[in-house]
């Protein structure tokens, strides 16, 4: 166990020395990896923010249930009880008087409302389902529409469906991009490690002849690939955070122009660690492939 730990420590130190020994080359490699990882990472963060925006956007998650104009107090209460019995939704009652008051307060509507002989608005319920997937919203809409004295159920399902489809498409595009970039990163590490194997062929040949196992020879290259990938991932995360810092104020201003407030959330600690880990795994994979192919020449 001690020998195993000693060898792993030595391999890691050797890998770190190689990284430090050629700082300019290392910096360029880290930049290449970091910038490459920035693209899918930035895409992920933007999609995540859009998903959050979609969830918090007014109306997207809501279903408006309008009662028939002639519905009695008892009939309205019956519908309210039915809604309260559903554990998966939150309900708010908007009386016809309250709705009229809201309408009056809207800009330019006061005169129009004043000219009406009577209140034409119905009692209504605003329903917020916990599960806001388009399929569930459609199901609830059909359920509410079938209840007695419900005149109309309004759901902006087309908007929700379009937004959901857009997010799904974005996710798929992001996965494809991430796959391609992952393969590119494996190729970058493959090339770097192959050059290192060639440069150290004398040492590898000697080590084999005096009793080094394949694992002993491979280990420093694996550590090198993983360390380079992990550091590249961290650099990529730093670039994403920087980009978010730059984008955040204009996005906030844009949201304010539309009467809303929206703050871009940069990647958190867990996401940064995940990006670094992905870089490490891809680097290790590239090193694995490269060393396996290169060491065949020594057999």
């Amino acid at each position, binding site marked *: 166990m001690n*020998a195993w730990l000693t060898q792993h420590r030595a391999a890691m130190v050797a890998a770190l020395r190689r990284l430090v020994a050629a700082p300019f080359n290392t910096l360029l490699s880290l930049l290449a990896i970091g910038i490459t990882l920035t693209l899918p990472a930035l895409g992920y963060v933007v999609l995540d923010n859009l998903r959050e925006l979609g969830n918090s956007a007014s109306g997207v998650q809501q279903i408006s249930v309008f009662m028939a104009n002639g519905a009695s107090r008892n009939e309205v209460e019956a519908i309210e009880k039915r809604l309260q019995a559903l554990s998966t939704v939150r309900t708010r009652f908007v009386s016809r008087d309250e709705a009229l008051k809201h309408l009056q307060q809207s800009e330019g509507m006061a005169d129009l409302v004043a000219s009406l002989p009577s209140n034409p608005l119905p009692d209504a319920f605003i329903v917020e389902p916990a599960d806001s997937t388009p399929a569930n919203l459609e199901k609830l809409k059909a359920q509410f529409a079938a209840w007695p004295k419900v005149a109309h159920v309004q759901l902006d399902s087309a908007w929700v469906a379009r937004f959901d489809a857009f997010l799904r498409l974005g996710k798929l595009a992001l996965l494809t991009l991430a796959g391609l970039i992952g393969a590119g990163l494996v190729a970058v590490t493959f090339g770097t490690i192959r050059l290192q194997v060639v440069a150290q062929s*004398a040492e590898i040949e000697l*080590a084999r*002849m*005096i*009793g080094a*196992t394949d694992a*002993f020879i491979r280990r420093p290259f694996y550590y090198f690939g993983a360390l380079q990938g992990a550091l590249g991932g961290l650099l990529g995360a730093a670039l994403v955070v920087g980009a978010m810092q730059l984008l955040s104020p204009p996005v906030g201003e844009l949201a304010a122009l539309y009467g809303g407030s929206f703050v871009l959330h940069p990647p958190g600690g867990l996401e940064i660690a995940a990006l670094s880990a992905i870089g490490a795994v891809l680097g290790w994979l590239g090193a694995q492939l490269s060393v396996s192919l290169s060491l065949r020449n020594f057999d």
Partner: protein
Amino acid sequence: MIVASHLGKRYPGGYEAVSDASFVIDAGQMVLVTGHSGAGKTTLIKLIASIERPTSGSLVVNGQNLSALRRSALPYVRRHFGMVFQDQKLLFDRSVLDNVLLPLQIVGLPHREATRRAQAALDKVGLLAREKARPIALSGGEQQRLAIARAVVNRPTVLVADEPTANLDRESATDILEIFADFHRVGVTVVVATHDQAWVERCAPHVLRLDHGRLV
């Protein structure tokens, strides 16, 4: 103890470097392998050190049949040999001490203990004062002594050398062969390929003479 029975090595392409070689080297013995250039000395040395694998016959070292070993077992067997190469195979981008440390790193010895043993090996061959130097700064004789220090640092049971005096002057060559003789005197089995006739006569009859891959 090294026991070879009808040992042969044929390379891809058909060239037979060693053929039908049978011999016994007792533990603690010093044996010289001699013969003209291309006689098969290097191949025989590499076979004994398990760097090359026999294509026929058998080779048993310390009770272990090297011909029947799995490839994955070879590195562990090689650690029992101390190998001095004809071209030394020194790592010129590392210090003298780091060159000697390599076999100890391979077996996973803790750094402090490895350094102590590497310095002891360098002291034995008279290079301790040069431990921080790069091999390129050493003379030919010193480089060969460094290669010996690296070969013995792991306390091998068998010390194998392929023409260690090939490129040295008379005096340095004698120094090097004396170092091998010193290891032989403390019980290490020593097998050295050499052209040095004075040493061949001194070691007789413990000499394996090769001619076109065959023992004569």
